[in-house]
């Protein structure tokens, strides 16, 4: 059975108040068509989990400008002045998370783990309120798993089962977010029939992907 659906059906799976994970790193590997369709639909009060908030005119940054988020969890917001403004004026809650910790929390959420232990953030504001665990005399921070209602992902190619392959630096968070969300939607630049992808080229197995949108060329 093909997982291919229309862009309209895809964005109807995102509801007000949902937590959404969105792939991409400074708008490289971001599902721009899904984002544009969500903005057109006008969903609100979302919680965003994403590496960064892109730019005012590119990537998830466009959703920040459209004021679709009540909360943002990201490692970096410095390239989008609107995120900083919303944060400083108290319009949007922003939680800053070290990049390597954020991806591990997502991985843990998708892979059945109760969290991860990391030295990253020890002795900084990141440690505040968290459990520190001693492993054989070394201190680690316990970082708990993250999950989402919906993941919005980007891939270069998908077959109709959702097996994904990538080009360039677009893998970033796209490879793990699908596992950590109840519904995973991928926007693929190219959708091919089952059997047209060599199993060796598949980076993300289709088992993590629920729906595919044909995004066309960039």
């Amino acid at each position, binding site marked *: 059975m093909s997982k291919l659906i229309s862009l309209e059906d895809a964005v109807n799976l995102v509801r007000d108040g949902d937590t959404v994970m969105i792939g991409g790193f400074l708008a490289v590997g971001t599902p721009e068509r899904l984002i544009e369709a969500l903005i057109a639909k006008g969903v609100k009060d979302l919680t965003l989990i994403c590496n960064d908030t892109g730019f005012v005119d590119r990537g998830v940054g466009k959703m920040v400008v459209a004021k679709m988020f009540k909360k943002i969890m990201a490692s970096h917001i410095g390239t989008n002045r609107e995120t900083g403004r919303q944060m400083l004026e108290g319009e949007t809650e922003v939680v800053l998370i070290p990049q390597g910790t954020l*991806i591990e929390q997502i991985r843990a959420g998708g892979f059945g783990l109760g969290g991860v232990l990391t030295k990253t953030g020890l002795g*900084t*504001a990141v440690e505040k309120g968290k459990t520190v665990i001693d492993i054989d005399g070394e201190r680690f921070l316990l970082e708990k798993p993250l999950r989402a209602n919906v993941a919005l992902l980007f891939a270069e190619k998908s077959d109709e089962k959702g097996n994904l392959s990538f080009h360039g630096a677009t893998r970033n968070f796209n490879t793990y977010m699908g596992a950590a969300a109840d519904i995973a939607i991928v926007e693929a630049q190219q959708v091919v029939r089952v059997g047209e992808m060599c199993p060796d080229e598949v980076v993300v197995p289709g088992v993590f992907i629920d729906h595919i949108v044909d995004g066309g060329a960039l």
Partner: protein
Amino acid sequence: MMDKQQMQEFIARRVAQELQDGTLVNLGIGLPTLVANFVPEGRDVTFQSENGFIGVGPAPTEEQLDPCIANAGAMPVTILPGGSFFDSAMSFGIIRGGHVDVTVLGALQVAENGDIANYTIPGKMVPGMGGAMDLLSGAKKVIVAMEHTAKGAHKLLRECTLPLTAINAVDLIVTEMGVIEVSHEGFVLIEQNPDYTLDEIKAATGAPLIISAALRQMA
């Protein structure tokens, strides 16, 4: 007197001397990015970009330009032969797991025990830490490349006053005035830019500065 660009290139050139043959290096955005331009001829240094590849090459020509290949600062780059692409979990496994030999970062403040603040000025500038906390905790060697003061205000301090990015992390600091090692005894000046006197360098440093017995001229 050097202008700002000359000063940054002078610092980057000196940092590049530190990069040994066969090492994997991660450069932060801004001044540290310039270091790649000054790697000594014949030295095999590989650069990682934490957004997901090893083998970062120079800026692309018009024909090479690919929107899917950009560095961690969103600048278009190329990937060199022998390079590889991977996702963020792999990228930070490489970083946290101690597989990056050197990271070069800028800083707002560095303390004499190696504490570093470089991700936020509360209420003014809140860009976020990105991958800096992971790099500082995982890289084998941490080099700070920065101007010695912020328009005269001390950046090298007994203790940082801004929120920390990491504790006890910095190994070496390269500024336009000199090269400073972070030791158990505090800051040790190991190289001096002869354009500045020792008194000038001490005055620009907000913590005691030990002068190495083997002090060399910075070139």
